């Protein structure tokens, strides 16, 4: 027991001179000292706090900017949300565009109770989102509008702007022809410098840049809604152009005056009959070259 006490005190360097003597006299004293000395060679590698502190401070500096570990994921989420809202906003500002093909008619409902019927080869654009602020459609081709009562409603065409306040009217804008017919209510047409107000039955027709006077319209809706194209004193080429649109064919006209005025109808659902309707009054002959080409010639 005495031995253990001595060794313990020696380990803690607490031996007094008397005890030291006793410790030195231990039989395994040399072994103990040798072990103790040898163990010293297992010392930890050199460690200099000053150098280590420098590198820790550097690392802290580096990490302190991105110290808040929640910032990064938050930035990610913010970016995703931004993109998402960006795309949805972009989509919402895009115009809705509706196109009809040749010999196709379609009826669409505009964002309010208004609706529009598109004739063949017509394109109509409007913006769903801005509709409450601005009732505005862009039209190329021919369409019949039934406009719900409310604020100003504009139909913008290449040739002019047609504005209304709840009414029914037809707008036809083709290559050389711009025709507005009012069926109900009051329609204003701005065409170049002209500004005309149309009462029910009134028409506004511009043909090859010239204003054409037209009789009062007696029908309550345009005839094309009933699959009949009706012409009154129209140049024959306009009739042929409409025929091409309705039947999706191309019509070749032989030597004849295409500015001849034509008054009459043709139906949209019977090509043979329709051809007869437009050729007989002018003493023309027609022949089908192939499925999509028709040749007209004078007798």
């Amino acid at each position: 027991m005495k031995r253990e006490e001595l060794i313990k005190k020696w380990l803690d360097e607490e031996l007094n001179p008397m005890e030291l003597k006793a410790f030195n006299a231990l039989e395994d004293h040399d072994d103990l000292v040798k072990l103790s000395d040898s163990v010293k060679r297992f010392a930890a590698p050199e460690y200099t706090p000053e150098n280590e502190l420098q590198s820790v401070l550097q690392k802290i500096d580096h990490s302190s900017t991105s110290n808040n570990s929640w910032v990064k994921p938050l930035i990610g989420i913010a970016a995703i949300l931004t993109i998402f809202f960006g795309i949805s906003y972009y989509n919402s500002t895009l115009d809705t565009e509706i196109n009809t093909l040749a010999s196709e008619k379609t009826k669409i409902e505009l964002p309010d109770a208004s609706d529009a019927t598109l004739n063949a080869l017509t394109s109509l654009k409007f913006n769903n989102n801005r509709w409450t602020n601005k009732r505005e459609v862009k039209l190329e081709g021919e369409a019949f509008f039934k406009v719900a009562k409310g604020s100003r409603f504009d139909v913008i065409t290449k040739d002019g702007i047609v504005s209304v306040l709840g009414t029914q009217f037809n707008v036809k804008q083709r290559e050389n022809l711009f025709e507005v017919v009012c069926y109900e209510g009051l329609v204003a047409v701005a065409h170049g410098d002209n500004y005309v107000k149309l009462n029910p039955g009134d028409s506004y027709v511009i043909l090859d840049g010239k204003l054409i006077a037209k009789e009062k319209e007696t029908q309550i809706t345009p005839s094309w809604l009933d699959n009949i194209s009706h012409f009154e004193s129209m140049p024959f080429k306009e009739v042929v152009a409409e025929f091409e649109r309705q039947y999706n064919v191309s019509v070749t006209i032989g030597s004849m005056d295409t500015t001849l005025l034509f008054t009459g109808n043709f139906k949209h659902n019977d090509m043979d009959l329709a051809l007869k309707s437009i050729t007989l009054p002018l003493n023309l002959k027609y022949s089908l070259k192939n499925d999509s080409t028709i040749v007209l010639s004078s007798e």
Partner: protein
Amino acid sequence: MSDSLKDNVCDETLFSSVFNRYSKDLHNFLYYKFGERLNPKDKVQEAFIKLWQNCAKVKPNKAKSYLYTIANNLMLNEAAHQKVVLNFQKLPTKSHTNENPEFLLEEQQYMEKLQKALSNLTDAQRTAFMMNRIEGKKHREIAELLGISTKAVEKRIYGALKKLRETIKEI
């Protein structure tokens, strides 16, 4: 401990002084306990960086035990525990020596035995023993660093010594 007036270690000069006071002991503690393989220097750095990041929550007088706990956990996280083999310094090789070759060989064998014996100690025994023998720390100082009683330190160190001698004799 004059700086216990402050209630955290977020001040850089205070942090530096804490570093200078504890880092070396912490490093050597980690080295004796876990050996060199798990890079005790890096663990010391990591522990201090953690201390800095959480400086607002750590009082200066708790910093030491905080550091030891963090560093110890970092080590334990790293890998399943393996036997720790400490390296001993080679004696400076002399071009000529008057010690006879037999003595040199015995010396070498003794060191290798000691190395094995050290690996056979428990982590707790080895750490306390090395701190005492190599650093020359008193039992009381070690007890304070490890957060255990002086009696426990004495037991560990004496136990280590006993076990070392037995192992060396057996080999």
